[in-house]
């Protein structure tokens, strides 16, 4: 018995072995259905996701759309120099950073809080209902959301926010919320929470189901109150998920979005509502300065990569979960 196995294992050695390349092509031929099912999409992804990377070169050129690829004038880093000297770019960077920090902090705190509140609910039907309703705003477009938000914030009859605040005697007369620049970051932060806080609880609620129930029982027997159980059992149980999401979000921190800023921005709040994406759109598409807009885009990507890798290596050094 033992003999026959070893012979079977050795027999390929005995035959003249096809070389690696030939074996590869032979397998490829044999698996041609799988090849036909995947390779066209690899070509697709190459064209639509990798080819545009070549477009980064135009940030180092004085790009003129009417000239061919190889007829462009190379200008080195002068686009970047112009960018960093541009006052509006500095302002746009300030807005982007402010929006990013607000989004990150507010997003994490509210989603974790809501997940904990839902987790503490004992009425299952009520819990399910609240969950379903809280997902709702995630499924509407920013166009619809911006419509709803600007209606709610308006100074005329439909502006529920002004109405409630006046009813509570917090303000004397209606405020034009979207007409005052320095309210914009706050309005944006709250709008983003309104739209996605429910959706963002999904992953935390899933992580909470992984916490061993005996930990809660032990804490209860030791006389821990509800708050203490949340602080000592639930929150530590969420730590790995929070750290992974934090690293992923740090890599995307400058992706502050484009739609809410564009849709709720106007002439009166432009100094606070214009972020990097809008800068790129304005210079690139509206004014046709493709080179400068691409340079701004590259700047964003480089910063994102630096942040992603440093967050990851900090997590590694602290002995925490990490992305890669």
């Amino acid at each position, binding site marked *: 018995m033992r003999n026959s196995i070893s012979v079977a294992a050795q027999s390929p050695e005995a035959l003249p072995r096809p070389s690696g390349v030939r074996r*590869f092509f032979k397998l*490829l031929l044999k*698996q041609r*259905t*799988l*090849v036909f*099912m*995947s*390779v066209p*999409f*690899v070509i697709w*992804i*190459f*064209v639509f*996701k*990798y*080819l*545009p*990377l070549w*477009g980064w070169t*135009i940030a180092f050129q004085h790009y003129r759309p009417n000239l061919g690829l190889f007829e462009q004038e190379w200008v080195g880093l002068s686009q970047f120099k112009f960018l960093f000297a541009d006052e509006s770019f500095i302002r746009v960077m300030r807005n982007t950073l402010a929006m990013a920090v607000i989004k990150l902090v507010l997003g994490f705190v509210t989603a974790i809080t*809501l997940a904990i509140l839902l987790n*503490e*609910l004992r009425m299952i039907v*009520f819990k399910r209902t609240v969950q*379903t*309703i*809280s*997902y709702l*705003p995630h*499924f*509407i*477009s920013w*166009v*619809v959301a*911006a*419509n*709803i*938000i*600007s*209606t*709610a914030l308006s100074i005329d009859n*439909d502006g*529920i926010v002004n109405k409630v605040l006046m009813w509570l005697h917090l303000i004397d007369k209606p405020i034009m919320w*979207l007409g005052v620049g320095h309210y914009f970051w706050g309005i944006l932060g709250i709008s983003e929470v*309104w739209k996605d806080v429910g959706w963002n609880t*999904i*992953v935390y609620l*899933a992580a909470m189901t992984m916490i061993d129930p005996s930990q809660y029982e032990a804490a209860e027997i030791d006389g821990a109150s*509800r*708050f203490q159980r949340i602080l000592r059992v639930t929150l530590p149980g969420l730590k790995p998920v929070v750290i992974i999401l934090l690293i992923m979000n740090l890599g995307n921190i400058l992706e502050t979005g*484009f739609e809410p800023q564009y*849709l709720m921005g106007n002439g009166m709040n432009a100094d606070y509502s214009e972020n990097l994406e809008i800068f*790129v*759109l304005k210079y690139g*598409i509206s004014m046709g300065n493709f080179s400068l*807009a*691409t340079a701004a*885009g590259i700047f964003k990507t480089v910063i994102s990569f630096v942040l*992603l890798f440093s967050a990851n290596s900090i997590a590694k050094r602290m002995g925490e979960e990490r992305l890669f």
Partner: protein
Amino acid sequence: MQAPVKKVYKRFRSPGDRLFDTINVLLLLGLTVVTLYPFVNTLAVSLNDANDSIRGGIYLWPRDFSWGNYKYVFKEATIFHATLISVLRTVIGTVVTVLASAMVAYTISRPEFVLRKFVTVMFVLTMYLNGGLIPNYLLIRDLHLIGSFWVYIVPGIIGVFNMIVIRSFIEGLPEGILESARIDGAGEFRTFMRIVLPLSMPALATVALFTGVYQWNSWFDVFLYNSQVPDLSTLQYELMRMLANSNSNSSMTSASAFANSGNDNANYVTPTSIRATMTIVASLPMILVYPFLQKYFVKGMTLGGVKG
């Protein structure tokens, strides 16, 4: 003093516990109100007679019920056509994306596939690489996709996140089922179509929902590539233009121009009620669908979120 003794048999709740529960329920009720009120209010305004809405004071239900706004919106040729394009891109985009993502996901779930690693890396890398707005725009321009319906479909055929959700699901299928299909002489494609696709319905439903929502809600690609082609406008883009009009122009001029634009409709409409009506039309399909798929997308988010 018998009551406490009785309660021990149920579950002991201290006064602090009860206070916590009460505050918790109140907070969550507050969240529900803040989430739902804007929709309910918009619905009420859209179902209220436009003329009457000017007086204000409509909160939870219409005061002077009327279908007038809806009749007006659907008689408007632009909006009707835009709705049609929205439906088309949602249906075609979803079918194409689900099939293509599932197909590639299946190939990279086959351990014996020689190109498995190559294909996986090619796709996963794009999660971190992005050419950016301008290079993408130039590519679309050079491919002559500007001014075409296919610019809504082709650039987004496969989302990497969606593919990972499906792959994780296929990898969890019992290997024996695929094995028996192969023993019965089914080829890879047949196995995929007849066995893998039907068994992966939960994952496909998740991806279909994500794609459908994305397609239905998109307006930026219309704005960027097809703003010069009225025939390819979508519902969201039309709503966006109304919002932009009302932002830049708080007076009635542009809006009433729209409201009275050569329409033999006897109904009187106002920009506010048209906007409310369009908001409902643009969000209702997704609002009606997602609760039924909740079980699937919650699972999909957890799968993709953890492994992706």
